[in-house]
């Protein structure tokens, strides 16, 4: 395979100040948090401004990057020495990072704007925007830094932001718990990432992406590389809610909807994919690790899909689909350079249409006074046209309706997977079918069929500040995929960063990209959609969920993920804690106090010897004398 281009040490031009992308939102967050109530009035505007500012910088850098000839489209430059002798903080602007930057700042800005409307009634709106800005900054640090430590800082930074935003309504115990869970589960992943970083450091003596190229990875044993790969994968699983660390994502929906859209759909959760692609050098040198990545991807895409099929909570449904879609990306990322382009491509298009749908869902909830149960929706199409239409566009995109964004990117992944390994391919196809079903189910239950509203519900279209972002996003959902995939435009664009695949790894192109796999997918999707129509479109939908088959409950319970965690980790953990506490107070400390008590007791008993009778004292003296005499004689005659 052709390895990516060397990194050009460079600064100057817009790229030279690309750190502004991180600095601006960070500054925004700082001002909003420290400014206190003073900034309540204009806080949200500042937040938006900062986000937009970052977007502008991103675009300019992008343009500048395009201006360069492809092979030196990798710009890295140091900012400052972080840990002397180990890590220098720096920026890495290359096609990969810049496309993320654009996604983050672009979609991010839209969601900022949307939130002005969505959060208008919340007394803590300023804090909300502060957190959003914080998130954008952290996420940009994650993708733009030129070394693993910087990545890790951003990595946990977004974790923090998501913790704060999930728990934004912290007075709700459920929210607080969800936030805590998200952070802790993520920590498990971060643990893996951390060890991975350690291994990289001890093996290669460097943590800068610039040093860790294919040439270098050649110097380590495959065992080490596999270990590194798997450890990084563990990190990725945590952040991207892949099996087995998926459980937090569904609870994370406790957060305000814009958060779900930005963090838990469009950007943060895809960081895992970024990590895998960014560390491509290791994975490509360790096939085993790669295989595991693909397996995890497929498993998750199915799991997510199945969960999505059973959820009545619109956001949870979307969350399930997010899991599943990220599963696709993982699958793609596990396929090497051939898959990278599709993975990232799907990541971007998904960023658009999923954000689009989440915001749509938010708009619906906004209209239904925060009702999330789809069984209480129905026939909303008539009352909120814009929302409905944009949502449906997103829907078509995700199920891979031909010529829409999702179609190209997802098909790309499936094709490559198929080419790479039949089984994976067909499973991916199956997943697509499921997607067709549960997404259609969602749409039918929400916008069509009969009204099942609560009495006091008076749905209405949302204000322009919310609908405009929807429209923009939906446009992206329509066209982006085609733009990226056709003519391998994105593939070539990314190549300086991730390298070009060997022609052999590429599936042979089809006319209009329609191969057997594609046809099969379309068929399955159609079937799924049709089935959904019969169950939820045409037929009556009960307002309360019937206790479905075993499979349904299985899916409703998130495949018993939480139950499993509880049984395997929480309960034993609690026991362990109790035992430890007991051992500490009774055992260790008990020993100490026991010793003290022992001495005290001895003293109490011994002092009784001092009877107060002078004659007993005399006796003791006599015995003492006898003892001394005896001892001396013994020693003396020894």
């Amino acid at each position: 395979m052709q390895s990516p281009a060397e990194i050009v040490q460079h600064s100057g031009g817009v790229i030279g100040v690309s750190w502004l992308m991180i600095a601006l939102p960070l500054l925004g967050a700082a001002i909003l948090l420290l400014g206190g109530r003073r900034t309540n009035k204009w806080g949200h505007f500042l937040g938006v401004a900062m986000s937009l500012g970052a977007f502008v910088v991103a675009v300019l850098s992008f343009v500048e990057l395009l201006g360069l000839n492809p092979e030196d489209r990798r710009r890295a430059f140091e900012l400052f020495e972080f840990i002397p002798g180990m890590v220098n903080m720096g920026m890495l602007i290359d096609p990969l990072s810049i496309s993320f930057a654009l996604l983050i700042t672009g979609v991010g800005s839209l969601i900022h704007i949307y939130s002005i409307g969505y959060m208008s009634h919340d007394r803590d709106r300023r804090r909300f925007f502060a957190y959003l800005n914080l998130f954008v900054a952290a996420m940009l640090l994650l993708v733009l830094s030129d070394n693993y430590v910087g990545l890790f800082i951003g990595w946990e930074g977004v974790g923090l932001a998501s913790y704060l935003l999930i728990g934004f309504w912290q007075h709700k115990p459920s929210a607080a718990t969800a936030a805590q869970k998200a952070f802790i589960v993520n920590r498990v992943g971060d643990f893996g990432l951390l060890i991975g970083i350690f291994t990289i450091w001890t093996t290669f003596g460097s943590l800068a992406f610039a040093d860790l190229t294919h040439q270098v990875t050649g110097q380590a044993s495959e065992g080490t590389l596999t270990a590194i790969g798997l450890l990084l994968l563990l990190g990725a699983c945590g952040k991207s809610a892949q099996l087995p660390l998926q459980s937090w994502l569904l609870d994370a929906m406790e957060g305000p909807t814009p958060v779900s859209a930005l963090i838990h759909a469009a950007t943060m959760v895809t960081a895992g994919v970024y990590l895998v692609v960014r560390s491509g050098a290791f994975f490509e040198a360790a096939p085993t690790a790669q295989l595991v990545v693909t397996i995890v991807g497929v498993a998750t895409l199915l799991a997510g899909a199945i969960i999505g099929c059973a959820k009545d909570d619109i956001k949870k449904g979307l969350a399930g689909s997010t899991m599943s879609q990220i599963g696709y990306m993982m699958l793609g990322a596990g396929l090497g350079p051939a898959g990278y382009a599709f993975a990232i491509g799907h990541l971007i298009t998904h960023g658009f249409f999923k954000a689009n749908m989440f915001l749509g869902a938010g708009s619906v909830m906004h209209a239904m006074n925060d009702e999330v149960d789809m069984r209480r929706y129905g026939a909303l199409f008539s009352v909120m046209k814009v929302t409905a239409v944009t949502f449906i566009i997103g829907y078509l995109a995700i199920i891979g309706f031909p010529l829409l964004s999702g179609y190209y990117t997802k098909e790309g992944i499936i094709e490559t997977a198929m080419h790479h390994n039949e089984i994976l391919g067909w499973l991916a196809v199956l997943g697509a079918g499921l997607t067709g079903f549960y997404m259609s189910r969602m749409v039918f239950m929400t916008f069509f069929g009969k009204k099942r509203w609560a009495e006091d519900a008076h749905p209405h279209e949302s204000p322009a500040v919310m609908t405009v972002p929807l429209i923009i996003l939906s446009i992206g959902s329509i066209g982006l995929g085609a733009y990226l995939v056709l003519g391998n435009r994105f593939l070539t664009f990314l190549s300086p960063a991730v390298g070009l695949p060997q022609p052999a790894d590429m599936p042979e192109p089809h006319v209009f990209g329609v191969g057997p796999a594609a046809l099969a997918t379309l068929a399955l999707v159609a079937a799924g959609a049709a089935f959904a129509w019969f169950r939820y479109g045409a037929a009556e939908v009960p307002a309360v969920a019937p206790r479905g088959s075993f499979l349904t409950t299985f899916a409703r319970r998130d495949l018993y993920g939480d139950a499993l965690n509880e049984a395997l980790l929480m309960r034993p953990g609690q026991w362990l804690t109790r035992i430890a506490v007991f051992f500490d107070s009774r055992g260790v400390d008990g020993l100490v106090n026991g010793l003290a008590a022992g001495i005290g007791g001895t003293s109490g008993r011994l002092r009784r010897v001092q009877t107060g009778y002078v004659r007993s004292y005399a006796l003791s003296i006599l015995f003492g004398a006898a003892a001394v005499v005896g001892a001396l004689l013994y020693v003396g005659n020894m």
Partner: protein
Amino acid sequence: MTTHYLVLSALLFAIGGVGVLVRRNAIVVFMCVELMLNACNLAFVTFARQHGNLDGQLIAFFVMVVAAAEVVIGLAIIVMIFRTRRSASVDNANLLKY
């Protein structure tokens, strides 16, 4: 032949010692102590004889004087406590203990 005297002095000393342990009356106890001192005297004198120098005998005189002084003090104290407690038994005086 001097060993006999030594044995005697040892016996006297032992008797004195035992007396101190077994007798209750302060005076008697004290007399036992005196007995021990005199046992020492006997020993001194005997050894003086053995070594053929006068130191031992000399010492005996010193010891007697000291013993006399001790008697003075001792009786004073014992009388004092006897007046207070109306008893010379050393076992009654055990307020100070433990």
